[in-house]
């Protein structure tokens, strides 16, 4: 599904990713772990197409298509979802309006019919319920006045509504208490654990991996993947620390 080859990327001329290679197949969950500053979030932003993150070498293909050629909204329409570490506030725009416009823009990009207001509302409510997010929150401005945990849950509600093929989840576990962690973990499994879908979990700690079992764990250090393994690698990292293993 996703093929990253020898990816180099920089911000303001400063190299961050230095030859990253990774393949993700349908039906797989991959976890990217690594110390602060290793380039984890940069990887997420490069895959999402954030302006300012310049790819200097290498390639990324998604379902055979050159992902790097696409604008961020075209990547979304192609089925890529980026869950933000710090979800952004958009004052004055309700969650419902934001998501309905977004979803319908994606559908238009794929040549599908837009969802009606009623159809959308039904979908949004069921996703909010599944993630234990008060339905009232759907009417509130996007992320404005939300607690850290609510913002993360809201990201998962968005993912559920958009129903992407491939999700990159950047530190989705940060700021969550134990209960919320379980709910979010269940959400990821429910929405994304399917044979036709795949997930890239970017995380600093292994605790989310107790809920979402990865098929592969990769260690990202200094801009490239230095080690790969199965779920047990995450436990080893937790025990022994990055310094030992990443080197």
């Amino acid at each position, binding site marked *: 599904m996703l093929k990253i080859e020898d990816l180099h990327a920089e911000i303001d001329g400063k190299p961050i990713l230095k030859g990253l290679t990774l393949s993700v197949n349908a039906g797989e969950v991959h976890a990217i772990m690594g110390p602060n500053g290793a380039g984890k979030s940069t990887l997420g932003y490069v895959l999402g197409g954030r*302006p*300012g993150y310049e790819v200097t070498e290498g390639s990324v293909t998604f379902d055979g298509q050159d992902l790097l050629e696409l604008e961020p909204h075209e990547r979304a329409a192609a089925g890529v979802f*980026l869950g*933000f570490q710090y979800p952004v506030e958009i004052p004055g*725009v309700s969650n419902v309006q934001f998501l309905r*416009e977004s979803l319908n823009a994606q559908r238009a990009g794929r040549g599908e019919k837009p969802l009606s207001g009623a159809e959308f509302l039904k979908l949004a409510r069921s996703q909010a319920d599944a993630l234990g997010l008060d339905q009232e929150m759907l009417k509130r401005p996007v992320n404005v006045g939300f607690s850290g945990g609510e913002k993360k849950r809201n990201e998962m509600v968005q993912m559920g509504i958009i129903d992407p093929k491939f999700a990159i989840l950047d530190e989705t576990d940060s700021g969550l208490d134990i209960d919320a962690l379980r709910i979010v973990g269940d959400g990821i499994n429910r929405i994304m654990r399917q044979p036709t879908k795949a997930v890239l979990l970017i995380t600093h700690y292994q605790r989310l991996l107790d809920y979402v079992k990865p098929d592969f764990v990769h260690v990202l250090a200094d801009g490239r993947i230095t080690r790969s393994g199965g779920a047990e690698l995450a436990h080893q990292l937790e025990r022994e620390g990055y310094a030992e293993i990443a080197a």
Partner: protein
Amino acid sequence: MMATKNAEALAAVSKKYEWGFATDVEQDFAPKGLSEDTVRYISAKKGEPEWMLDWRLKAFRKWLTMESPDWAKLSIPPIDYQDAYYYAEPKQKKTIASLDELDPEIRRTYEKLGIPIAEQEVLAGVEGARKVAVDAVFDSVSVATTFREELKAAGVIFLSISEAIREYPDLVKKWLGKVVPQHDNYFATLNSAVFSDGTFVYVPEGVRCPMELSTYFRINAENTGQFERTLIVADKGSYVSYLEGCTAPMRDENQLHAAVVELVALDDAEIKYSTVQNWYPGDENGVGGIYNFVTKRALCQGKNSKVSWTQVETGSAVTWKYPSCVLAGENSVGEFYSVAVTNNRQQADTGTKMIHLGKGSRSTIVSKGISAGRSDNTYRGLVRVAPTAEGVRNFTQCDSLLLGDQCGAHTVPYIEVRNPSAQIEHEATTSKISEDQLFYAMSRGLDQEAAVALIVNGFAREVLQQLPMEFAVEAQKLLGISLEGSVG
């Protein structure tokens, strides 16, 4: 990468003015230039009584002694008042019984604007649907007035001001120039001399106007100054909502517009006045475009009277406009909700004046300025509390949003409080559309234009939600269109 993209996008012009077309209808012009003869010509054309001509002439003579104001943060080339026509009307000028009789060319113009009268009719005809009466002002003369009968049944007078001068001279005489005196300012005085047409509304005591009253203005003839005059009187305990919306065809030469709007609210009366303004703003280099010098003022004369101004300003090359409230009545209320968008080379100096004279009078000001391109956007507002006005409250919020780094946003609040019991609050913010917001919205599937439109509409929400439904949708689209291509 971001910087180059920004530069490219800024260089790319905002979407071409969609509604820049001229309608081919024969015009009847006054001779070019401005003199007493011009004033007499207009008055004669209108079949006005002697007192009206005298009123105009008095204003004209006063105007000759005045000078164009220069205190606003606007850069305006000198205007040659002799190089313009002051009166133009479509040839077909008699009142028509139904819209079917309307000149098909004029009707097509409205349809291109996306505000077809036919649709409005259907809208109004549907049982239970809110009704909108359209007094369509095409250039200087009202060519179609609808719903007059139903309004008449309610006792509401809704006429062109020319008709009102003939049919209700006493009412007009009583209030014309009482809120905005003839000598008020340069442009208001000019308007008093040469106003061509406009609207008159009178809502009798205790009547709630059964529909929203709507006038679509349209400047059509080349080099024709547009001098609208609007007078709305809400008698005791009455209510009226008035909508005003404008677009203009593309022209190379600047067109002068100097309207005067006077509102009077007596005891317990309420007037809601909403404007969506989208006149031709000039091209990306600032060539052409409308000069919009408007004097809008409300007199809240009665106790518990209320006037609410809501405006969405996206057009005009130059906007000079301060819809104001004189809060004379005890416990009277004034509100001003404004969104002003400037792009390319547009300049806007707009705001309000809340003059608190009555005890317990209250005012709310919410101003949202959005600047893009190389434009300048100024909020200028006055809150004045007279010594005798006890217990006055005012809340002012001025927010500016910048798109790009070559535009300007300015806030100039004047606060003059002469009574110590007053509570005055002023909040102001300036922000840029953040790259975080744009990327977040785009990563959810919105293209850049849609993302900008969404964020800007969110920013302006408090104001947009004050608009009647019919206008809110139109206004939201307008904000998006006005800003297309302005963010990289």
